[in-house]
């Protein structure tokens, strides 16, 4: 077992995990941050997407030990004092979810995209979300919410 120190959502947190533990397991089992979802575990579905050093990664294919000293942001880090952020609010407004299982991953992929490219075209949004699958309702509401967020500039 290894003792890791992870910087998650601005907090320095200690977690004990197997040496080759995945970031997904360290977050969910180790730290109880279950907003990050366990999906396919093979880097196809994107339900486990988090930000590592500001870019989107699938936490099911990242070694937790590699994340020490890097800034990790999970979906729990988006809201402030119980208030949803602009992107989350717009997901609700545009009906960008049905069952909600893909939503944390979608939010994190969209957050990473907007950091890299604050005014993405629809095509660029599609590429930014190409690692995230929704199996309920499709992507129209999700794309609309991201476009609205880019327009709002927040």
């Amino acid at each position, binding site marked *: 077992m290894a003792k890791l120190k992870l910087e998650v959502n601005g907090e320095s947190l200690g977690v004990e995990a197997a040496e080759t533990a*995945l970031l997904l397991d360290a977050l969910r089992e180790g730290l109880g941050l279950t907003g990050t979802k366990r999906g396919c575990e093979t880097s196809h579905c994107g339900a486990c997407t988090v930000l590592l050093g500001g*870019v989107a990664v699938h936490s099911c294919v990242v070694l937790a*030990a590699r994340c020490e000293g890097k800034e990790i942001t999970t979906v729990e880090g988006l809201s402030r004092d119980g208030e949803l952020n602009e992107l989350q609010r717009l997901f609700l407004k545009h009906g960008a979810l049905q069952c909600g299982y893909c939503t944390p991953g979608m939010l994190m*992929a969209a957050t990473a995209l907007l950091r890299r490219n604050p005014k993405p075209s629809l095509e660029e949004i599609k590429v930014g979300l190409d690692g995230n699958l929704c199996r309920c309702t499709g992507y129209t509401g999700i794309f609309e919410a991201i476009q609205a967020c880019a327009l709002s500039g927040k």
Partner: protein
Amino acid sequence: MERKLVRPHSMDEALSQREQHGMDALPIAGGQSLLVMLRNKLIDPKILLDLESIGELRGLQRQSSGVSIGAMTTFFDLLSSTDVQSAVPLLGQAAAKVGSTAIRNLGTIGGNLCHNEPGADLPPALLVLNASVELRSRKATRKVTLTEFFRGFFETAVAPEEILSRVEIPILPQGARGAYIKHAISPEDLAIAGVAVMLVPDENKADAVGELRIGLGGVAPVPFRAAKAEAAVNGKVLNDDAIRAVAEIAASEAEPMSDPHASADYRRKMIKVLVRRAIAAAMERAERNGHGKA
């Protein structure tokens, strides 16, 4: 016994581990394929040898002889590099087609080559770029051309005591133009068939091909150069009939497998289509840009 993680900070340390433990110390680069293989219990190494902290495996240098790329360079680094864009744009084009955004952020050129999974996007492009790789052990450093590197289904020339350290791409001939076309059910999948071409004009005859290179992926146990098809066209004028003939020969050189994504027969047929399209795309690029760099 719990699997160990070893995180060396130098190539010397990493190569010592390989010398001591061989195949039991499996190098992990971006981990985007390896951690899936672990999860699916297809591999069971005693030690994961994390290459992330080895500085010399990073970075891309443009030299007079070509481009030298550290094994840990990510797909995102490649597709966003201005050096790649100007010197070897075909590599950037192929890197942009690998997996999804999250995979491109972490996956590496060295990992992609060493994993050697059929349908990977970089190998066809690197084959037509005449790339070679540097393989290092404690005792020696050797250079292996990419055509010799891929040995079999998920097998490469990397010996148990070695680590792939760099990928070297020689400077392209004047006026060379490339294209990579991938056929997949969904763009983030591995290619059912992937075709890269590099078209080098004849210096003396404006409308003739000096050299046509064709790299095929996903249609045989290993990615390979369609040598017979290439030989059939070099020095000739590339009209519609010649292109169709080249595509036929290339398809005959494949040894495709059937899997749940596509039958062998379908893969062979797709090569014909993709070779024609890739040549057309490279020709169009040549016309659009006039003479200059590929």
